[in-house]
């Protein structure tokens, strides 16, 4: 399976991005639900602001039910997981049925969690299966470029989300360096100036999260 077309690169890249979006936002959601138990019941408003989505929920209860499970909410976790599935299903011949199965299992988990009576606990299974998916990507996809394009998508998404969430700079730098490795190995065309500028920002005192986010949007040139 040596031939990769623009169309397939796009699907692989977004498969990486959407799986990571589900992974990070779900972990953050689970932390948030803990905080909403007693410390700050209105925390969901800040949550929405941080991850950059419009707060259309109106109440904690509505948020807890809609944000993870509502397929008609374009920002919900399940919508992002469906997008990951949409990108995976057209790449079965590249990533393999065994790897794809973990996306299907994560989807089954989230639907099961919605019907269950301990939703936050059940949602942990989604994270388990996404980790298994990435394990499978590492272990079962022989083509290095395919692996690296998926990981590049994952790395860019993680970096973008960590920047939005205001994670500590040492974490941002670690994720950025990791993403850079995959960028080089992916053999995709990218804007070297973006990397040069971010490298300088990191090593200097001018490390502005929003600027890095803006720069990242123009990183991949194809």
């Amino acid at each position, binding site marked *: *399976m040596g*031939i*990769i*077309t*623009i*169309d*397939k*690169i796009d699907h692989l890249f977004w498969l990486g991005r959407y799986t990571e979006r589900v992974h990070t936002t779900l972990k953050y959601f689970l932390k948030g639900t803990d905080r909403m138990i007693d410390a700050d019941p209105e925390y969901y408003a800040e949550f929405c602001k941080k991850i950059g989505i419009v707060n259309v929920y109106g109440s904690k209860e509505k948020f807890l039910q809609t944000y993870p499970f509502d397929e008609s909410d374009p920002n919900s976790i399940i919508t992002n997981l469906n997008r990951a599935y*949409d990108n995976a*299903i*057209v790449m*079965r*011949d590249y990533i*393999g*049925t065994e790897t*794809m*199965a973990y996306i*299907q*299992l994560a989807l*089954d988990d989230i639907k099961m969690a919605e019907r269950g009576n301990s939703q936050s606990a059940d949602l942990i299974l989604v994270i388990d299966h996404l980790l298994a998916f990435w394990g499978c990507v590492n272990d079962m996809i022989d083509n290095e470029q395919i692996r690296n394009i998926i990981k590049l998508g994952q790395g860019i998404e993680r970096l973008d989300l960590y920047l939005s969430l205001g994670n500590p700079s040492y974490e941002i730098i670690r994720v950025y360096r990791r993403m850079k490795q995959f960028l080089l190995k992916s053999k995709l065309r990218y804007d070297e100036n973006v990397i040069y500028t971010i490298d300088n920002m990191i090593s200097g005192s001018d490390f502005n999260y929003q600027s890095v986010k803006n720069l990242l949007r123009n990183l991949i040139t*194809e």
Partner: protein
Amino acid sequence: MNQIIKKSETINKLLSRYGVKFGIYKNGTFKEQLFPFDPIPRVIKHDEFLFLEKGLTQRVDALNCFLLDIYSNKQIVKDGIIPEEFIYSAKGFLPPCDGVVPPKKIYSHISGIDLVQSKDDNWYILEDNLRVPSGASYPMISRELQRRSAPDAFSSNSVIDNRNYADLLKEVMDYVNTGGINVILSPGRYNAAFFEHSYLAEMTGAVLTTGKDIVCENDNLYYIDYNGKKQRVGAVYRRISDEYLDPMTFNEESVIGIPHIFEAYKKGNVALLNAPGNGIADDKGIYYFVPKMIKYYLGEDAVLMNAPTYLPFYEEDMNYVLSNFDKLVIKDVAEAGGYGVIFGNSLTKEKKAEFIDLLKSQPRRFIAQEVIDFYDLDILDEKGNQVPRKADLRAFVLSNGKTKVWPSGLTRFSRDPDSFIVNSSQGGGFKDTWVLSR
């Protein structure tokens, strides 16, 4: 067998895990759903399979001879075996294919032949599918999962392994390949059989494409990679119908085809599996003539029988149909997938009169068949009870110089106790088909 039945839930869970689904459009909305699997297999004894193998090989060989003839000399028409009205008025006869000979002279590389077994134990051919027959991937993947879930069922029964379907398919693609890579051309993610397209691509190592990455230059087909590098394409297992294959030759509004692919095929620069124009051979009107074709081309009597069929086109048959209307099933030759099928006894008096007027005005459009009392197969109902249901068998026959019958097949069943329609698009499920090795 009990081992398999006990593991029904496990097998269905695994089928779900691996995304064994089919797509369906309902009220204009696309939905993917699991293809309901029943764990009780259809079992075909070794001797019975040898008989079926003989009959199916003979039938597909004759149909390939017919296609070669009908798009060249048309000797069978000249010799009065088939009236020309059944050729030129058929939707499946494609004038652009006239005079075009496919690589290695094979038209139907993958044939799906639908059969039923009647209560008197005879097998009857219900229809031939020589365009884009689907369904082989379902018994193939389900066998893998059955063996994982209930190994004892296979160690205690001598069942021929059917997981070689992808190898057989690859052999066929390689045999007709004109030099280049093999690709599977799919209409895309929202096609009913997309699972099968992607799974077969994975299993055969062919490249799955929706055609966007393929161009035709100087009557050759190329697959273009990210860097703009071209790879020649030697064989296209296309899972889109003739009319959408090439907007330059067929339906000009097609956006899922590949412009000029037909020119490349015509020049012998690429193999198309199955060949365009095969629809003439699986036309429901032509079905009537297949036993005559077998005699004509092979000099043999048909091993497998057609269901008793009448052509209202012939006056004698029309009279029979009108006087026995209530006991016949009438099929519109232009329809497929279980649509356009009318059971005479199901119509009200007014509807019947209306339909008979239509039949008289368009006799070539319909065929009538005796209703075969299918041999029912047991399935597990929702409560876990074994209940009988109507079932057919789609046998897959592959042609690569030597015609081979895959020792398995897709057994489809109706979930509705009152229905003869087994199609997945109409709620049917599937079973594995076990062929015993001794």
